[in-house]
């Protein structure tokens, strides 16, 4: 059976990968959307904040649910 450290290490590195993904979308997206359309508004919120903060937040809530409930092992190894 796979030892605990190998499994949890893979899971930790996946977390770092997801962090990189989230960061590129959030930080990169905020400035990009703002540059393209500084006055844009979606549902009363500045467009950059809607598309690059609130939307990814919701998406990464789903990702966290997948990561926690489906991806992470439950630690039955030796």
């Amino acid at each position, binding site marked *: 059976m796979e030892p605990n450290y190998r499994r949890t290490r893979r899971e930790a590195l996946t977390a770092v990968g997801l962090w990189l993904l989230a960061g590129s979308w959030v930080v990169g997206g905020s400035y990009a959307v703002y540059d393209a359309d500084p006055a844009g508004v979606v549902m009363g919120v500045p467009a950059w904040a809607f598309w690059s903060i609130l939307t990814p937040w*919701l998406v990464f809530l789903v990702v966290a*649910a997948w990561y926690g409930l489906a991806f992470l092992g439950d630690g039955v190894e030796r």
Partner: protein
Amino acid sequence: MYETGPAVWGTFLAYLLATFFFAWLAQRKARGGAYMEEFFVGGRSIGPWVLGLTWIATSASGGSFIGVPALAHTNGYSMLLWIAGYVISVLVGFGLLGQRIAYVGRKTGALTFPDLLRDRYDSPMIGGVSGVALIILYTGYIVAQYVAGARVIEAVLGVPYLWGVLGFAVTVTLYTTYGGFRAVAWTDAFQAVVMLIGVLITVTFAISKAGGLEAIRAGLEQQDPALLSPMGPSNFLPIAAAISFFFIWPFAGAGQPSLMTRYLAADNPAGLNRALVLVAFYVILTYPAIILIGVTGRVLVPDLVAPDHAMPATIMAAVPSWLAGLVLAGPMAAIMSTLSSFLLVSSSAIVRDMVERNRKESLTEKQAKRWTLGSTIGVAAVCLVFALRPPDFLQYIVVFSGTGLAATFLTPTCLSLYWPGMNKTGCMAGILGGFTTFLAQYLAFGTRSFLDFDPFVWSLLFSLLFCIVGSLLGQRDDAEILVRYFDDYKA
């Protein structure tokens, strides 16, 4: 300062009574195992709900409820980008070390964060150094929480500062010494719920009072269009700072010993997985709302006596007075839950890492009890004395300890637990290297180091470098130890 009727006082007292009730309830769940294991990690039997809520209540301090809305009042929507690391910080926090620490702790019997490192290298020196660093940084933090809490009730209830500080110190010390980790976790869970309700009520009333999000946006635009930009007024958040904060919230969070201790208390790994999802959901409900409260406050109450009044002033302006007491308990709950956890982390470092592990035999039940109560009350009292006349350097300790602790410990902890090649030399080099490079940058450049990034970002890199170089130069650890941590290790 603001109008406070008997209703506010009444709900406030009810909140305090409920806190003690939960401490008592928690105590009834104790299973009577070994004293220190029960007192410091709740007998490793905390389930996913309580664990998740104590994690978030510890991580959200007075700063999240007072300082963050204040910044949002000043800087507008750019604060959403400032705080955006929380999009992923729960996943990173639990994913990076949660299960691994829970597993190793069970296997080696670790009760504190310094235990984890000391046992991995069989090195009292590493245990001692991390214990001392932890005590110094956390006592500074405790003093700051006392001060913040006392200032809030001074502003809201008109209670004199001295009595406020005393009230916080005595209440928190009482339930912490009474029930240890289990009481802290259960009261944290209750306080997290109070915080959540407070934020949701406030944001709903505030937005409706201001006439909806569109009206708020128009109001902000009229005051200063920069309040609607990601950079904020006078370039508050340039891109290097936004990137830095996206590093800081997830990774400085993951590197807090007070949060790592929480993983040691988990009843099983699957419970940690469920706690992760619960906390991620909690964070998306509260953090954007906290920013919205500050932003809406800018429209409702544009002129404040002090920026820190943004939250209480918005509550007073928007929430009906019969509800205000409940809502104002939110910031109190945030401060108390953080305080109790820090108190426990510091006293456990004293009892476990300074006293017990430097003796030939372990403490007897009775000695353990005496040392634990003594050091918890001792830490609380020393901090109380400092809080009566907060020293000028306090703010430096606070800013420093949040990111400094993680800059010092995060990389060495990760490598110690995941990399068989890491050894004593590498760990020591990583701890000292991370700490000194952080301190040096901080003293030389403040929060804008090379290329305008925060010192924390660079310190993580430096500390990684120190760990690797140190490990390559030093001697490999005994195969006997390595096999215990890395099951398929072959010398």
